[in-house]
């Protein structure tokens, strides 16, 4: 191998990309300099809209239409300027000297092509190997990325393999021709935390073994701490700060970097204070099965989404349900809010049995249980003014319009927004603001129990911290019971008093956040903790003031 420390595989010099007129700023990225050496992982971190993806796409020559590079150079291995390359030359370069993996392994693979064919495509285009040679090489690559049973997998279709395996296949395809540069655009964001840990390990391994330079785009400081050699922090199209991982994470110089790092929730929960409020929610042996009864054809397959779940939440207390996708945590929330009917079980809200409710009784339940949903872009009707959304609930329960509007105005102040914004439409607000509006809408019903179904997962880390703070604040002020669903242990540590860990529909462990985080008992909980990216590193960080 060449001496990896000296060879530069990517050098972005003074690059400026112009946005189309009418955008909120003139440049997508302005005058940025980033370089990646062979055998080095450079993480580009930033919040949404910081220009990190534009940078990655421009290096691949995949700039979206409407955007234009107005100055700068993108040098590959010091000799080839991507920006000056012809489309034919670019096609040659992709795959052979640079490759990219994407966020959504589901959509990055062609669903009607066998896995092996998709990897072999690279060889077919760029080499003159025979079919048998290609197959042999593909099998080697599949083995290299630690896919189980490559002989079988090579002929599988993408829908037959899991998300993590798909990402491995993408990596195998990207690295088949040993490109000097690998661009990874949030490759683990769509994956579960345990899968993410394995993929990060694989990227690390590939980069070490083959001396590939990696440009790794992410928004997650945990991931940065886990794999970065050097870090580039971007904000609104500018490089705010760059340096080695230790420099950036331990001694950040710029206020923006400091703010970002301070926003990362610490994995140490605050000490547990036993709540004294009465029990608001009590669920016993809650079950939900999905499956067809088999009318005429097929059927009979039953999925046990929630299995014998016992929960209770007191007034003023936050119970977190933590689990990976498919663990049934959202189904629990949906059963309690009766968006789906539980198959069996017993739910009591404020001492009232909810399982045998008539439809009028259910309406009362609606008032006492409110939900804040994950996606702030879809949880408000885009065609209605936010005021109309907030007063809808109270007016359903007989409040006059004037009273409802007065309440909405008061709540807007409560969630940190201007009461005068009630006549605006959802698209006029940012994600964090919309989530505040959703909280106001839930509070307008004066509920006893507030359910947050991944309410901060779609938000940038700095916004996430603010929304979590707001949730804790309203919980205290309105003396609510809070049921908080999340996949992120760090978020759970920050807001939850008690935590229940779910796996495959069952609660495997439940306890106070303090005890659970300090000393997890169940093997699965331990695995989750070990998988949390950058855990060891972040734990050693000095709290940034």
């Amino acid at each position, binding site marked *: 191998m060449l001496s990896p420390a000296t060879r530069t595989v990517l050098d972005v010099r003074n690059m400026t990309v112009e946005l189309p007129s009418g955008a909120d700023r003139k440049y997508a990225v302005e005058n940025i300099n980033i370089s990646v050496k062979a055998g080095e992982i450079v993480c580009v971190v930033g919040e949404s*809209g910081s220009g990190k*993806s534009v940078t990655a796409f421009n290096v691949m020559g995949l700039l979206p239409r409407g955007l234009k590079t107005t100055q700068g150079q993108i040098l590959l291995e010091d000799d080839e300027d991507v920006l000056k390359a012809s489309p034919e030359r670019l096609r040659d370069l992709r795959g052979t000297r640079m490759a990219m993996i994407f966020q959504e392994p589901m959509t990055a693979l062609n669903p009607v092509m066998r896995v092996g064919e998709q990897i072999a495509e690279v060889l077919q285009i760029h080499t003159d190997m025979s079919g048998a040679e290609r197959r042999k090489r593909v099998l080697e690559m599949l083995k290299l990325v630690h896919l189980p049973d490559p002989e079988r997998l090579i002929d599988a279709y993408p829908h037959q393999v899991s998300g993590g395996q798909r990402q491995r296949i993408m990596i195998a395809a990207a690295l088949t021709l040993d490109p000097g540069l690998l661009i990874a655009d949030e490759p683990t964001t769509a994956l579960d935390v345990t899968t993410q840990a394995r993929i990060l390990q694989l990227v690390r391994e590939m980069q070490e073994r083959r001396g590939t330079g990696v440009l790794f785009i992410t928004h997650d400081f945990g991931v940065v701490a886990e794999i970065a050699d050097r870090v580039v922090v971007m904000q609104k199209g500018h490089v705010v700060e760059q340096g080695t991982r230790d420099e950036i994470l331990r001694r950040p110089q710029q206020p923006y970097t400091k703010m970002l790092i301070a926003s990362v929730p610490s994995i140490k929960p605050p000490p547990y204070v036993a709540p004294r409020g009465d029990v608001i929610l009590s669920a016993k042996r809650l079950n939900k099965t999905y499956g067809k009864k088999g009318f005429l054809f097929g059927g009979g397959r039953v999925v046990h989404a929630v299995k014998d779940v016992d929960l209770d939440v007191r007034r003023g207390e936050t119970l977190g349900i933590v689990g990976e996708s498919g663990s049934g945590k959202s189904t629990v929330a949906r059963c309690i809010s009766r968006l789906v009917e539980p198959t069996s079980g017993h739910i009591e809200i404020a001492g009232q049995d909810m399982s045998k409710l008539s439809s009028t009784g259910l*309406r009362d339940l609606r008032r006492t249980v409110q939900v804040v949903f994950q996606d702030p872009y*879809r949880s408000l009707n885009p065609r209605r003014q936010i005021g109309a959304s907030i007063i809808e*609930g109270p007016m359903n329960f007989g409040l006059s319009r004037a009273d409802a509007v007065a309440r909405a105005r008061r709540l807007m102040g409560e969630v940190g927004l201007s009461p005068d914004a009630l006549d605006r439409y959802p698209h006029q607000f940012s994600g964090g603001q919309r989530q505040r509006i959703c909280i106001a809408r839930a509070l307008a019903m004066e509920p006893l129990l507030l359910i947050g179904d991944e309410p901060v997962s779609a938000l940038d880390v700095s916004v996430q911290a603010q929304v979590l703070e707001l949730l804790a604040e309203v919980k205290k002020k309105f003396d609510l019971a809070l049921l908080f669903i999340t996949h992120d242990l760090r978020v759970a540590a920050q807001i939850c008093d008690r935590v229940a860990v779910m796996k495959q529909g069952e609660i495997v462990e439940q306890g106070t956040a303090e005890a659970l985080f300090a000393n997890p008992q169940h093997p699965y909980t331990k695995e989750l903790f070990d998988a949390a990216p950058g855990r060891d590193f972040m734990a050693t960080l000095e709290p940034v003031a």
Partner: protein
Amino acid sequence: MTTDVANAPAEEAPAPRRKASAIRGALRNPSVIIGGVIVLLIALLSIAAPRLGTIDPAEINPAFRNKKPGAERTIRNDDGTQSKYEHRFGTDSLGRDVYSRVIYGGRVSLIIGVTVAALSIAIGLIIGMIAGYIRWLDGPIMRVMDGLMAIPAILLAMGVVSLSRAGLMAVVIAILIPEVPRVVRLVRAIVLSIREEPYVEAAITLGTPTPVLLFRHVLPNTIAPLIVQATFICASAILVEAILSFLGIGIPPDVPTWGNIMAEGRSLFRVYPHNILYPGIFLALAVLAINMLGDGLRDTLDPRFAKRV
């Protein structure tokens, strides 16, 4: 992935006025303009038919049969005076004026097109919303709709018309029945995707009663695709009416419709092509214009759908 790129300009951007810009966008689309202008012209022609130098389209003149376009004859006016009348499109085998018949024929076509479109959208919307929202009714309703779609439209029309007295109403019903399932499918598909939207679930948790929920949160999402669908139904209804009339099972032959005129001219097509040519041109033009209007509206009102097709 590209979400960063896509979201960057949208975040905190000043509010574009959605509705106003959608209408303005539609008015800038060339196929909306061309299609719209032609439809408007045909509609005006039909409405103003008596004032466009036409004579009674049903008047038979055995002495003046099968005249080529441009033939002139003297007609007696109501007040007893006489004047020359030019048969611009010639006359048919009963001596009726083809020009007058074509212009009047547009009335029947447009009435049927618009009525069928409006009725099928209205009925289909209601059934589709019910099928999409009330889960246990979905299966039964959709199987009935599948059954309706399995009956060939022309055969169904023949059945309906032969069961009742041939007339406008019978033809409208005959064309309507096979169109409704298409609207139901469209509406149901939209409702099924919209009901999963978190804002609909949020409305459920706010205790919004189901009818209000459907009207307030679900219905607005169906309007744009339905407007587009309505234009296609309108065009297809006009065509089917012409086919039925041409086969002699639609509107009674004495009523001028484009299909009837063509049916009448069929036997002498080789000698006197004008009998089929003129109504044919109008029919083709009307259907083409309405379809262009629909295509243009789809591109501007419903870009998601446009990309998919």
